[in-house]
């Protein structure tokens, strides 16, 4: 009898938690995720993602996309789960994310390289919504980003905003923000000291 009650309690609790989760994530995002089982992301997903987080995303270069051309069922390269320093392909990538702890397949799905690893619901994430995967480790940053505290937004403060994705600013393979040259400093105002300078002795 006791065990039955606890089971019922647990079920009710889980349902409540799930419902809460759905409310937090918003219905639009969950709708989009349900479409992700298909190989190619459909038009509908792109539309809904644009409504949610309109982002300009750099397209992948044609030499490495689509991923399934090499990592596909036709030409199946062996799946390697061990970290190596020298890559045979993708030589331009210097993996410098999380020290030596991370490897390609900690983010890229080993089964289907067109997608990233799934969240706990088991549905793969496409590259347009990589921020969901980033949020798995960087949860506090993801929360701040959703509210517009972390990261850059352009557009309208009271209307449609352009959200910059995590990967727009941080290269996921080497995420530290790159230093840049500063713009010129302001002119120094003239002071009597200026003309006196050459006379120093």
């Amino acid at each position, binding site marked *: 009898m006791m065990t039955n009650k606890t089971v019922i309690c647990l079920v009710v609790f889980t349902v409540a938690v799930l419902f809460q989760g759905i409310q937090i994530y918003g219905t639009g995002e969950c709708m989009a995720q349900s479409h992700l089982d298909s190989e190619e992301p459909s038009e509908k997903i792109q539309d809904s993602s644009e409504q949610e987080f309109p982002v300009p995303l750099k397209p992948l270069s044609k030499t490495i996309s689509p991923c399934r051309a090499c990592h596909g069922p036709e030409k199946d390269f062996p799946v390697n789960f061990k970290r190596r320093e020298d890559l045979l392909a993708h030589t331009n990538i210097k993996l410098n994310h999380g020290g030596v702890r991370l490897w390609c397949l900690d983010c890229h799905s080993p089964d289907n390289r067109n997608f990233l690893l799934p969240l706990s619901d088991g549905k793969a994430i496409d590259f347009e919504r990589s921020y969901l995967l980033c949020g798995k480790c960087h949860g506090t940053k993801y929360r*701040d980003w959703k*509210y*517009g*505290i*972390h*990261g*850059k*937004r*352009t*557009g*309208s*403060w*009271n*209307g449609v905003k352009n959200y*910059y994705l995590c990967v727009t*600013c941080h290269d996921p393979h080497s995420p530290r*923000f790159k*230093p*840049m*040259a*500063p*713009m*010129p*400093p*302001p*002119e*120094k105002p003239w002071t009597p000291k200026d003309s006196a300078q050459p006379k120093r002795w």
Partner: protein
Amino acid sequence: MSEEKIKAPDPISELKVSSDPEPSQDSTEGSELINRRGFVQGTVGMLAAMALGSCSWQEFFQNNFRRMTKEEIEQTVERLQAEYKQKYGKDFVVDAEGPIDGTFYGYALDIQRCIGCRKCVYACVEENNQSRDPQIQYIRVLRFKDGDMDLEHSTIYYDPEEVPEKGYYYLPVQCQHCENPPCTKVCPVQATWTEPDGIVVIDYNWCIGCRYCMAACPYMGRWFNFADPVIPPDKINVNTHYLGNRPRMRNVVEKCTFCIQRVRKGRYPACVEACPVGARKFGNLLDPNSEISRIIQTKRVFRLKSELNTQPKFYYFFSI
């Protein structure tokens, strides 16, 4: 001795007295009459010169922006647009839009993200038609040594090859748009005031250039046009606002207006859009879900020189 001096014959006053048909008892009265006439003639001549010169009658008798009627504002805007067209050869849009209902602007800057690249400074210069020579820049980026918060130890003239530099942090300062602004209180002609949406603005045509406001501002947020502003003709921003980035004249004070010409149309200020690290945040303080409200609710924030009770609406925050 003193009586002798007064009674001493004055050839000029005698001449005037003799030429005047009306007999005058004292020599001083005659000279006063001449002076008054001369004064009236001089004034008329000066006003005529003004009307023919750089300043038009309408400009000379233009009212304070807050006292203008709608028609007067429309006339002024038309006149200004024609004036700028003649001067710069471009079609200007001079807005005089009022505040959006239910808005009160606030600004936040993440000092742990700022890398001191000065991109905001130059975006601001281009957006707000600031003079390039003499140089006017509304934003100053201060560089501090890590652990030091003394403004006296900071510098704005740093120029390394790459930023951010190790061991330093950066703190950009501009007009803080205080809720209790010392600058508007000291203005003797009320040419500067706080708008209902919280933006501190200047009516450039009403400003007399006394620079009391600059002395009163503890943040060095105001700038004076010591000479005629020089702007490259191809870099002029033609989308302007009367209280914001319309071209200024010599001898007036100017300052950051949160890009009033942009934010009153719902856009972000230029510095927010220019920041490459997304350290600058802008929004409506009255909206509890806006970025700025979330930052004040959830992050550690501080305001510059809060001990002065100026109550800035410009918050600095720590994101980590």
